[in-house]
């Protein structure tokens, strides 16, 4: 069982490697510049997948946290934390590249667009979850699970709330329709990013499970010697 699961991570990275190379050379060499945004538009090809990664990981973390609460599963707890960490990473990527792109095309790093604010708030919830898992005492793990579930439930609510809130502000059109050759560049990039992140996620989850097993082993050792 262990042997098979050990193969997963190298396979993920092995599959990701050519995709990364292919998507990068496609992005920089073979995709025409978008008409009004010029080269800065190329940020899109990794910015948007990072946003999706963040949302996906938040949902995975919420679902795993639910399983953790229901079944007291240590694996689920590890998966929830690992997913939150990778989601945090994705969110950070979106939040850093977004303003760079905005600066290049809209002339302002922050427009208060519904997606921006939603992502920022979701990222805050993930950060709060990580803080709670790392600094809360041992028993606050279940509370952290509740927080992860709330984070996942919050996503649509926040999006709707921000849209309502925005009715009093100007709206900015975000890219709606793309020509097919742009999508042809987009999908390999997305798959490469997802493969790499799932590889990292699997590594982290296994590490966390191992930490739990080590704790048990140490306690058992102490028991046997006492």
């Amino acid at each position, binding site marked *: 069982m262990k042997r098979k699961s050990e193969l997963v991570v190298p396979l993920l990275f092995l599959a990701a490697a050519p995709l990364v190379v292919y998507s990068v050379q496609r992005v920089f060499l073979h995709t025409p510049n978008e008409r*009004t945004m*010029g*080269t800065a538009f190329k*940020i899109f090809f990794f910015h948007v997948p990072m946003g999706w990664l963040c949302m996906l990981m938040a949902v995975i973390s919420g679902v795993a946290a639910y399983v953790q609460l229901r079944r007291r599963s240590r694996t689920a707890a590890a998966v929830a934390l690992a997913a939150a960490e990778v989601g945090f*990473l994705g969110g950070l*990527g979106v939040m850093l590249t977004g303003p*760079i792109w905005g600066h290049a095309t809209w002339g302002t790093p922050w427009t208060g667009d519904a997606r921006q604010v939603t992502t920022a708030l979701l990222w805050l919830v993930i950060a709060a979850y990580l803080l709670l898992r790392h600094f809360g005492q041992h028993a606050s793990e279940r509370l952290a699970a509740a927080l992860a579930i709330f984070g996942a439930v919050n996503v649509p609510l926040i999006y709707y709330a921000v849209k309502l809130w925005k009715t009093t502000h100007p709206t900015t059109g975000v890219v709606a329709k793309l020509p097919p050759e742009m999508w042809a560049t987009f999908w390999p990039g997305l798959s490469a990013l997802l493969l790499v992140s799932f590889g990292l996620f699997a590594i982290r989850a*296994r590490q966390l499970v191992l930490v739990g097993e080590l704790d048990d082993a140490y306690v058992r050792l102490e028991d046997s010697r006492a």
Partner: protein
Amino acid sequence: MTPISPVLITGLAFEAAPAPADGGEYEPAVGTSREEKEILATLEDKAAAKTASDYQHIVWAYGILWALFAAYGLFLWRRSARLRADVDALRQALDRPPARGGPGA
């Protein structure tokens, strides 16, 4: 752009020079002069060239993204090194030779 256009424009100007019709109410048409058009065109060209060769933003964006992932990878690597040390310490504490390969990170 082509040598035709000045001729064309002067021709138009002559053509447009009106036969003064009814008295006094005529006002000359106001439009973009050739100089203004040229300035506009060069500005547009400059702007287009700038957006088409705006490498600064891309370099920053991709640099940050890849640096983030590299940092996380490094963090994971160090973690697994520490875990491995812990596993080894446990094995020594157990006084058992590490025959069976434990769950390596």
